């Protein structure tokens, strides 16, 4: 089963813009044909954004929607930090490194992001970056296993 890392921007566009490519990708991931890699850093980032923009009442709800994937690989900081020395010099923005390290710790096949700057860094030679538009188009290639019609799986 393919393994993907969705950047924080994908969760935000996906949860907040119903007709976006990101929303389509998240919906497909909820059907269980793709393994989603997440990290503690990623979750904290997305939930912090919700706390700031919408208030604390929405944080729990956003959290529930964010982790609602049948095939989820959660990477703890102790796992991604091991990767840090190997990749730190290939990423210009240090605060993006935890995402890159989590992608490698989770053996990702693809890293979906709208952050073009990230893919233009040296790390771009080692990470299979894709925009949500391109990934949404390529989704049938990535999917495996049986799809259900139900977005809910749990």
């Amino acid at each position, binding site marked *: 089963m393919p393994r993907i890392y969705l950047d924080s921007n994908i969760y*935000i566009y996906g949860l907040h*813009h119903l*007709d*976006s490519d990101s929303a389509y990708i998240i919906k497909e991931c909820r059907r269980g044909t793709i393994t989603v890699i997440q990290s503690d850093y990623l979750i904290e980032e997305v939930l912090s954004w919700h706390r700031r923009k919408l208030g604390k009442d929405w944080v729990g709800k956003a959290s*529930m929607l964010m982790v609602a994937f049948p095939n989820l690989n959660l990477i703890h900081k102790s796992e991604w*930090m091991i990767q840090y020395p190997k990749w730190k010099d290939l990423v210009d923005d*240090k*605060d993006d490194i935890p995402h890159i390290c989590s992608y490698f710790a989770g053996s990702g096949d693809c890293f979906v992001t709208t*952050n073009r700057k990230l893919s233009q860094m040296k790390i771009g030679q080692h990470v299979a970056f894709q925009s949500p538009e391109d990934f949404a188009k390529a989704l049938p290639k990535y999917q495996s296993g049986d799809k259900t019609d139900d977005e809910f799986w*749990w």
Partner: protein
Amino acid sequence: MMATEVTTIRLPPKDSVIIDQFVDAGEFKSRSDFMRFAIKKTIFELVLKEFHEKVAKKGKPTKKEEEQVMAELKEIKRELWKKYAKDIS
């Protein structure tokens, strides 16, 4: 093991019969297992509905919205990184 609370619910007998049929067929381990699934599913659907109705917008994000989100995330990442970087030797 995750902490649990005991809750008693009243069901019409016909619903209990149907639940038992699912349990007997091996779809669920027990009535409790069925109820946990049903409650989680309902919570998920209600949260998703609430999100769609009160928070989410139709359409795709505009360029301006994308740039704004990226700037907001950058600020959050900077703060988070300060916190996490302490643990990196």
